[in-house]
């Protein structure tokens, strides 16, 4: 009989009783290399040798993606985007994971990985176009090694696993990084992906941003034990990392990707973090969570701790921070301008990519559509 791991805290499950909120799972075996206060700490399994320059680059990433995110939220409020899924609070998880990837690796995001997109060199405007309703993401998934956003929860985990099986067949030393949320861990397809990855020892790493909520539903509804423990049941390692610690995320993800490249199969990473904003701009989190929770998490801000460390250790001059701010302002301007000026797609676009070989039927529908639209222009 498998005893439950000692860290398990079962929560009173009587239906009708309020789901007890956010059991304190934070003490659990979490990899941390930089404390919320900005102190470097060591971890027996994960060390990180990192130059000041690299540290500054990570800081820059964090600040720029946060600024992008803020600008996008503002643009949505002004009606320039249909919706926006904010990454606020999850910058370290995303930048750390993204920067752990080698150029030849491939990432499979959800709909919230703007920070990872950034690290892959995706133009933010190509992400904005999706949320503006211009297309479903304008970047090239092949050229960037960053797949398109997947909105159906969890489906991308199987794609990532299949892609990794292809990597295996090609004999390539590459790894695949599949992103998912805490809520996604309940989807059958996600569990199938883990089963497949284990069965074929596919070079895929599952990177779960446990931001404590699936929209309004707290983690306890999805799992009563820490999520990283799921993996052992499928026969591969799971690890929890402080998701607000960009160094720890980088180190843990790097190690897992390297293991995958070396044929050691999958790893499940639970990045323990928090969604500081609403689920999306359509959401109202005051309905389901307490302000006090937010306050608590503010103390663990992913950017503040890097700034503290950079300043305190002398790895960055004050000027550096100003420069990054200035760059962020420029980025925001570029994003704003690019978004507002983004042309609408050609109406015929919707017919043109349905198939690689368009069917005569669809060609006929397209022709009718064109003629129908033209009839209005004639009228005028």
């Amino acid at each position, binding site marked *: 009989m498998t005893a439950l791991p000692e860290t398990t805290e079962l929560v009173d499950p009587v239906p*009708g009783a309020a789901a007890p909120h956010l059991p304190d799972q934070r003490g659990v075996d979490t990899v941390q290399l930089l404390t919320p206060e900005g102190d470097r700490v060591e971890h027996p399994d994960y060390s990180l040798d990192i130059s000041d320059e690299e540290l500054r680059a990570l800081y820059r990433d964090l600040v720029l993606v946060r600024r992008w995110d803020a600008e996008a939220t503002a643009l949505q409020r002004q009606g320039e985007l249909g*919706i926006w899924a904010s990454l606020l609070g999850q910058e370290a998880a995303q930048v750390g994971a993204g920067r752990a990837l080698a150029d030849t690796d491939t990432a499979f995001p959800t709909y919230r990985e703007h920070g990872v997109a950034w690290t892959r060199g995706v133009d933010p405007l190509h992400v904005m176009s999706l949320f503006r309703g211009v297309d479903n993401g304008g970047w090239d998934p092949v050229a960037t090694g960053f797949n398109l956003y997947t909105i159906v929860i969890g489906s991308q985990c199987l794609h990532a696993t299949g892609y990794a099986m292809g990597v295996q067949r090609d004999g390539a030393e590459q790894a695949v990084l599949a992103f998912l949320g805490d*809520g996604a861990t309940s989807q059958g397809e996600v569990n199938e992906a883990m089963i497949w990855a284990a069965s074929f020892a596919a070079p895929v790493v599952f990177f779960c941003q446990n931001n404590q909520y699936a929209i309004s*539903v707290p983690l306890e*509804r999805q799992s009563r034990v820490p999520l990283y423990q799921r993996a052992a049941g499928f026969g591969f390692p799971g690890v929890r990392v402080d998701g607000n610690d960009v160094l720890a995320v980088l180190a843990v993800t790097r190690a897992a990707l390297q293991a995958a490249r070396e044929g050691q199969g999958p790893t499940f990473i639970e990045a323990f973090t928090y969604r500081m904003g609403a689920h999306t701009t359509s959401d*109202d989190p005051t309905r389901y969570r307490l302000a006090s929770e937010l306050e608590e998490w503010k103390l663990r801000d992913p950017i503040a701790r890097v700034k503290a460390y950079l300043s305190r250790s002398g790895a960055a001059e004050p000027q550096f921070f100003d420069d990054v701010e200035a760059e962020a302002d420029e980025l925001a301007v570029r994003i704003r301008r690019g978004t507002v000026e983004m042309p*609408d797609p050609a109406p015929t676009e*919707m017919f043109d990519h349905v198939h690689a070989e368009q069917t005569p039927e669809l060609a006929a529908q397209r022709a009718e*559509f064109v003629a129908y639209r033209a009839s209005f222009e004639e009228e005028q």
Partner: protein
Amino acid sequence: MTETLTIGKALNLGLRRAMEDDAKVVLMGEDIGKLGGVFRITDGLQKDFGEARVVDTPLAEAGILGTAVGLAMRGYRPVCEIQFDGFVFPAYNQIVTQVAKLHARSKGRLPMPIVIRIPMGGGIGAVEHHSESPEAYFAHTAGLKVVAVSNPVDAYWGIQQAIAAPDPIVFLEPKRRYWEKAEVDTDATPDPLFASRVVRGGDDVTVLAYGPMVKTALQAADAAAEEGRSLEVIDLRTLSPLDLDPVIASVRRTGRCVVVHEAPTSLGPGAEIAARITESCFHSLEAPVLRVGGYDTPYPPSKLEEEYLPDLDRVLDAVDRSMEF
């Protein structure tokens, strides 16, 4: 009592009545508790009926439907909310192979009074998978019944009737019309659930619609009237079973028929309706039944959705083509 209600609020009230009437009614879905659902259709219900009757589920649609089957077997009447139309597919196996078939499999020994609420259709400027019209997938499935409401009155009564009904029902809600209002007389005797309804009389062409497109059809009828054309508009209300008697009576009179829906045209509900009306009204038809539907493409990015969705003009265009045939 008469109240002015939006479709959303009418559903909310209807659910509340159903839960008061029958303690076995259990609502299940993602975010339907504290949040009240992303469209607030279940607003306040968990607070009043508790977490055992308004269940925030894990994020897994097969799980929702599969456990609903078990609850139904135990004598409960689960009402499942699918958050958006495009997310019903993970539950498709349970719906098609279990929910739809269990009554037959058990020769009627296992009741399956499950309601699957789905906000359907486009027009809200959403991202991918949030604007789908999957009704044909269900209407083609033996063992399921499919209802599509178009207005607050039918929303209020329909949800209660669907919950009280003994068979599994896919209950389609016209997402982009959630905020449309009407007077609802909560003391009235409702129309039967599985019946279509003439919502506007007319003589030239019979226009059929359901759910969100009923309003569009009525707008078209208004516009046509200005040009001296008289459209009869029928709200189908139920897609399986199809109640075609009023339609056949109408088409025998008008000789012309146009069916409107958002779902892709090929093998959309209009196909079945056209085939049946042609069988029933062959000698009365002056023109083939014409269909105005979504194109046979994935639902496009929202900047193009107005091009994709049938609108007043496309209905009128079909009316013209029918008249000129």
